[in-house]
């Protein structure tokens, strides 16, 4: 009898656990279905129809995708925007994450004021992107901006350019702003990864007379690979979804001359239109969103796989 009761109690406990889990999981699952899966599926459906303003027209299969990839105007805009996103990714990897890596290596040596620097570096991350975009737009203003005023003050008036108005400088300026905004985040992640490496590894290498550079390259770098994986993938996703800073600082058209156009801006412009850009076009817009999703999804997975495979186990 006792054994049976025990079994029953176990079964009840398990059933209760399942109910409890279902109760806990149902709300997030519902939210996920309503706000993630349904919009995703409807975007795919939208992309297969012809749209006249807000009215859904005929089913046209993959025609919208064809227009985007091969149509004369849209494809030119698409590849321009895509190329800009590539530039963003490469630049952020080098400037933002490279800088963060150097800072993390330095901070890992516990310099004086280590805590202070850690907080200061992380401060811009917690500011809102809207505030940062707007504030830097003011700093870079050609007439009243702090940057040009300072350049003129120091006798560098030739350098006082309309930074956000020239096709050569607009994107680099925005990338610096983005790096300024975010560098604290990879710094912190890298720093945490370095702290995870057992100190005896490094001390042993030092005793063997290895140079600091060699320690950094052959011990710290391989052992912080998991952190690098995370940062690379997040930077990749962030770069190809980049929207806020370009939108706030240079508007929906990716001006000047499309030099700051991004896939996100192109999508928004195509799908929803704007006052002077034109009317909304859900068909091409949705098709573009689907393509963006597939690209980012597939490459993120490939990148994660590749990067994880080169991570070494610490034992």
């Amino acid at each position: 009898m006792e054994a049976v009761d025990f079994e029953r109690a176990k079964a009840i406990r398990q059933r209760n656990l399942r109910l409890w889990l279902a109760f806990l999981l149902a709300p997030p699952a519902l939210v996920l279905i309503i706000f993630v899966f349904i919009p995703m599926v409807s975007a795919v459906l939208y992309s297969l129809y012809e749209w006249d303003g807000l009215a859904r027209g005929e089913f046209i299969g993959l025609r919208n995708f064809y227009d985007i990839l091969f149509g004369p105007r849209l494809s030119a805009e698409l590849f321009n925007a895509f190329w800009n996103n590539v530039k963003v990714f490469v630049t952020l990897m080098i400037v933002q994450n490279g800088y963060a890596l150097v800072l993390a290596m330095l901070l890992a040596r516990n310099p004086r004021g280590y805590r202070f620097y850690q907080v200061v570096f992380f401060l811009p991350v917690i500011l809102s992107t809207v505030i940062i975009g707007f504030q830097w737009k003011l700093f870079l203003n050609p007439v009243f901006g702090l940057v040009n005023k300072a350049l003129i003050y120091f006798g560098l008036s030739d350098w006082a350019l309309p930074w956000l108005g020239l096709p050569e400088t607009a994107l680099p300026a925005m990338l610096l702003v983005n790096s300024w905004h975010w560098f604290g985040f990879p710094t912190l992640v890298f720093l945490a990864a370095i702290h995870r490496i057992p100190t005896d590894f490094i001390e042993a290498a030092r005793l063997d007379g290895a140079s600091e550079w060699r320690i950094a390259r052959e011990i710290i770098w391989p052992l912080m690979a998991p952190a690098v994986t995370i940062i690379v993938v997040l930077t990749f996703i962030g770069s190809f979804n980049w929207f806020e800073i370009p939108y706030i600082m240079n508007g929906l058209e990716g001006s000047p001359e499309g030099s700051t156009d991004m896939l996100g801006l192109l999508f928004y412009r195509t799908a929803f239109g704007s006052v002077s850009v034109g009317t909304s076009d859900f068909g091409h817009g949705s098709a573009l969103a689907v393509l963006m999703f597939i690209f980012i999804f597939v490459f993120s997975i490939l990148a994660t796989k590749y990067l994880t495979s080169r991570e070494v186990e610490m034992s």
Partner: protein
Amino acid sequence: MKRSISITAKAALVATGLAVAAPAAAQTNLDFWSWRQEDAKAYNEIIAEFEKTHPDINITYTAHEAKAYNTILTTALAGGAGPDIIHTRAYGSLENISGAGYLEPLDGKVDFSHIPESLLRGTTLRADGKVYSVPFATQTVLVYYNKDLFDKAGVTPPETWDEFKQVTDKLKEAGITPLANGIADGWTIEVASGAIMPNFYGESFFGDVTSGKTTFEDPRYVAALGKMAELAPYMPTGFEAVDYATMKALFTSGSAAMFIGGSWEIPAWREAGLNFGFMAGPAAKAGDTRMVATWLDGGYAVNAASPNKEAALEFIRFTATPEFAQMLADKLNNVPAVQGATPKDEALQQIIKLQEHQTPYIMLVAFRYQKPTGSTLLQDGLKKLLTGQATPEEVAKAVADGLASPE
């Protein structure tokens, strides 16, 4: 539904002789959406006037952020929601929603006798020829000037293009930026073209290009583009990155002497305490009439899916009356589309006088129905033109080609 119930209820009360003691009848609540946040106070006053004569209707005015308005509205409508009364844009933007069947056709339901035909065209769906929105106000492109700065440089408002260039040169010599305009926000340069170009391409060009008799590669249009290119040296240093906010700051702070912009700017100049005047763009040569570019800013429409259509229509009918036009002019300083009002404001009177020689603001009025829009093409072209990266001929060709091959 609610309204018909309240009517029945009233009838029942009257029938039983209890009307005198009747409590306030059940109200119909209407939502009214707009993009004009700065006008909220005035609209609430106008609505209050309307509600005085319609005690059973209660209208709530909600203004959304202007840039996001189209997105918010179209998303709501596509989801089967949205307000009862909709402040719409005109031309292509309106077709976007009227073409999809989200708006109630107004023909036969509203008296349009006070509205000129040319403005009604801006709210008519080309496909079925029906009017979907009551035109509310027109905008006019003006050249504003700072009277104090003109005095300081010893110049008077120019009449012709040659005089305009002399004035700008003199201002420059006096160390004053002649023109506040920049090109960072594409639409502001298109607006500027509305003041300069019509006086060079002439009155007949609009009809010719819209009827297909000519294209934008017409020599008249190319010549007009050439004049736009001449503006660059008079713009602020770094004009490539001067956006709308900076333009306004330059003009209101008295750093720049002229500002080419829309008639909606007047309240902002007044608020800044500026001693300003305005005029039409300069004439090509002495003796030519000076034309101003105008367009219909939008209208008021009824959501076809509204449960309170009849009450909403009642308000829409009110917006087509001279009485409403008078309020629009006096409270909002708009040039009403509905005729028959006599604005008290002097500036408004002057604009109405300038409008005697008007020409449609070309891209918005006729070439924003397809993608790419004429505005997108022209804005791109003007930016390249002013930064010396394209010739007037190249810009004209890009505009003509772009319009000839819609996506």
